[in-house]
């Protein structure tokens, strides 16, 4: 069974990474958006493997169903993008990219050499109920603040769109 799970993990990871590579290598912004969707879907697969189906469904619902659609929508509304693949998608900041990549490499290698203790507890079966109770119990105030912030952003977007 372990070989089975590992092979699925490898497939899902490859999908995620290929999607991520596609985002930066694609010729048009629209194609980048499509690759991003593939990457999002791969991450949802990783959540399923981690026995977090609620997170996986939320990932699909929010990132694939909403964020990606929003990105593609925004691309469509941008002028002169349609049928104009001549513009390069990156700004050739190789130096900055190298620094970020090096820092990322250090962080990732530090986390992977760390000797993490895997938890022996089985994941909660009904994560949704626990999540809901946490939102309306101990984390009520942060939850409400985030809601208000989102509401302000919504109102702001409408005001900006009207001007």
């Amino acid at each position: 069974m372990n070989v089975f799970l590992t092979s699925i993990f490898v497939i899902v990871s490859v999908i995620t990474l290929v999607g991520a590579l596609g985002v930066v290598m694609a010729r048009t912004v629209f194609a980048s958006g499509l690759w991003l969707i593939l990457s999002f879907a791969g991450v949802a697969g990783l959540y399923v493997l981690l026995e977090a189906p609620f997170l996986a469904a939320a990932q699909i619902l929010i990132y694939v169903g909403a964020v990606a659609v929003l990105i593609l929508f925004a691309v469509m509304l941008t002028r002169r993008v349609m049928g104009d693949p001549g513009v390069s998608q990156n700004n050739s900041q190789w130096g900055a990219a190298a620094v970020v990549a090096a820092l990322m490499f250090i962080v990732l290698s530090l986390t992977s050499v760390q000797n993490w203790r895997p938890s022996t507890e089985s994941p909660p079966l009904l994560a949704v109920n626990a999540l809901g109770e946490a939102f309306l119990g101990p984390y009520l105030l942060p939850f409400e603040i985030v809601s208000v912030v989102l509401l302000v952003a919504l109102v702001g977007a409408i005001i900006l769109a009207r001007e």
Partner: protein
Amino acid sequence: MADFLSQFMPAWLALIIQHVVVGAVLVVFALTNMLGITWIERKVIGRLQDRIGANRAGPFGLLQPLADMVKILTKEDITPTAASRVIYNLGPLLVVPPALLVFAVLPFGAGVSGSDLNIGLLYIFAVASTSTLGILIAGWGSNNKYSLLGAMRAVAQMVSYEVPQALSIIGIVMLSGSLSLQQIVQRQSEIGWFVLLQPLAFVIFLIAAMAEVNRTPFDLPEAESEIIAGHHTEYSGLKFGMFYLAEYINVFFISALAATLFLGGYQIPFVPANNPVHTILGPFVLIGKTFAFVFLTIWLRGTLPRVRVDHLMGFAWKALVPLCLLNIFMTAVLMPLVGLWSANLGISEAYIAIPVMLLANAVLAGLVLWWAGRSTRRRETRLAEQVVPAQ
């Protein structure tokens, strides 16, 4: 089945075979019903318009779906020269899988479903939300202004109506305390069918579902007279067939979902849930209820005119969403009270919950209709005052 097979082969192979078989059964089930629905639609629309409908291929035109299929398969496959080939072909490929994937969690009987996820409803909404991608990609890939505009309209409509559709079933989730479709059906045997407890939510769900699957009166995304059929203008042959297929599978699924959430799913009325008759008749009962809803969608298609695009968006956001929120609030206030009363009086929860919720829903519906009528009259008088009479 996996247990039986694992006597002959490794467990993982047995598991894979089991999933493939269950998946294949569900896909064939959906596709067969889609063929049936196209025939029923032609016949019912024919009758509603005082015609006979398809009657040439086979008895009662029963072979008409097959003839349609052959016609679609033999049509010339056209790709616009200016279209991006990969993206153009990706569109129709991405519309069908979400339509089929949602069948995995549909309960056909107690314990009989492809996979009883405990996040079932969330899974359905997550998978269904990806169907907008196919339309968006199709509209972009066609490299045609009308297709692009049509796709954007279609996606705006589907994203907008997803909100009332999801909000309308929150009342059900509150009543059943679970997102699992199996448990939602189980709960309906205890407390009564949710159409009696949540009639307003039922109506909102039906309206939003019609808009989600682009049926009349919300068929703007694909109507010929609305920016020349929008996102599938450039598609022919089997690629157009994919959009057609996805639409009818969606109609079937949304009907099955309505039957499951509001009409007790596979349960026969007045028969206790643990009665073994459900094991045998359950799937047929569910299909019967589903086709009642399919008939309703066809009936609406034959009756109602199409709504205008600005009315469409305004209706979702200004009417349906506030009403959903009121319904959630009402359910949250009333259901604990019902639990309290039934405990105090010693009567079964269903006998108190149904009259209380029906009354509350009727009051809410009356208030909303009164308010809507008043505000419409006010707007009309205001508009009438603005008109300056000719001197």
